[in-house]
């Protein structure tokens, strides 16, 4: 199957996904463990596997208000 995919169109999507995930990881890394709901590793997997919605879930529900 030869599908002509123009990668110039696709890379911004991948880059944005990566920005979301990396921002999530930085925020997780810096956070005090007590300020995170559940374990940090759980959120790493949710962000990695959940694409956009995983990152949204982390940013919305992952952190307790300081």
């Amino acid at each position: 199957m030869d599908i002509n995919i123009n990668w110039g169109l696709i890379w911004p999507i991948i880059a944005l996904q990566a920005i979301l995930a990396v921002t999530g990881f930085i925020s997780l890394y810096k956070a005090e463990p007590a300020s995170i709901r559940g374990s940090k590793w759980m959120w790493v997997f949710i962000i990695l596997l959940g694409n956009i919605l995983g990152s949204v879930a982390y940013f919305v529900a992952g952190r307790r208000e300081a």
Partner: protein
Amino acid sequence: MKSFWIYYQKEMTEASRTYKWIWVPAIFLLLGIMQPVSTYYLPEILSMAGEVPPEAAALFTVPSAESVMASTLGQFNIIGLLVLVLAGMNTVAGERSTGTAELVLARSVSTIPMMTAKWAAMITLMVVSFALGLGGAAYYTYQLIGPLDWAAVTGGAGLYAVWLAWIVTLLLPLGAILRGPAAAFISLAVAGALSLLSSLLPSHVQWSPGRLGGMAAEQILGSGSISWSPILVAILIMAVSIIVAARLLRRSPLSPQS
């Protein structure tokens, strides 16, 4: 006016510390870009899935540039609105549950500049994210599918921004009496109910701000005219919400649970 700017800067700092200035615009931009790209590649995606006979896939025609933009608004309506409301639900409710509100209100300050600053900060984030998302969608649609009527797109975008703005504003008074998630749920429910009502009974609720979302899509599609009453009602709702929220916060600076 001076205290407004102080509160506004505080809200902006807080939003960037909680990474809102990264993830909210990123999600809008993703939603905006993905709609034209996935429409453009739909025949390939269908044939890759393998379940569709090639004849059926060949029948698929790429929709017009206008309808791709209108369906992008549909995407913003589902995920975009959810993201905005979830990002904004703790602007007031969070300060009550952490006690910040009580601390600030221990001094006899007016809550009006504080509320207006919160509102302005939320709207700034919303406008920037939405403009990025729709701009991305328009650029990709223009490159992949075809030319757009820029005046119609700008008009539709303006209407849609008012639609998003009044729903997000509802979070302020709701957050002053409820906890964050409850406030988020109720404002989404109100938005859904009003928009359903205006699609079921369009002639009865001419003035309903629930029409704004549909009006924006029609505007982009090049049909339909702008009526001003829903816009005026939405602006009125925003003004009343800010004042009511300021009053309510003064009366109950603490969350019931804390």
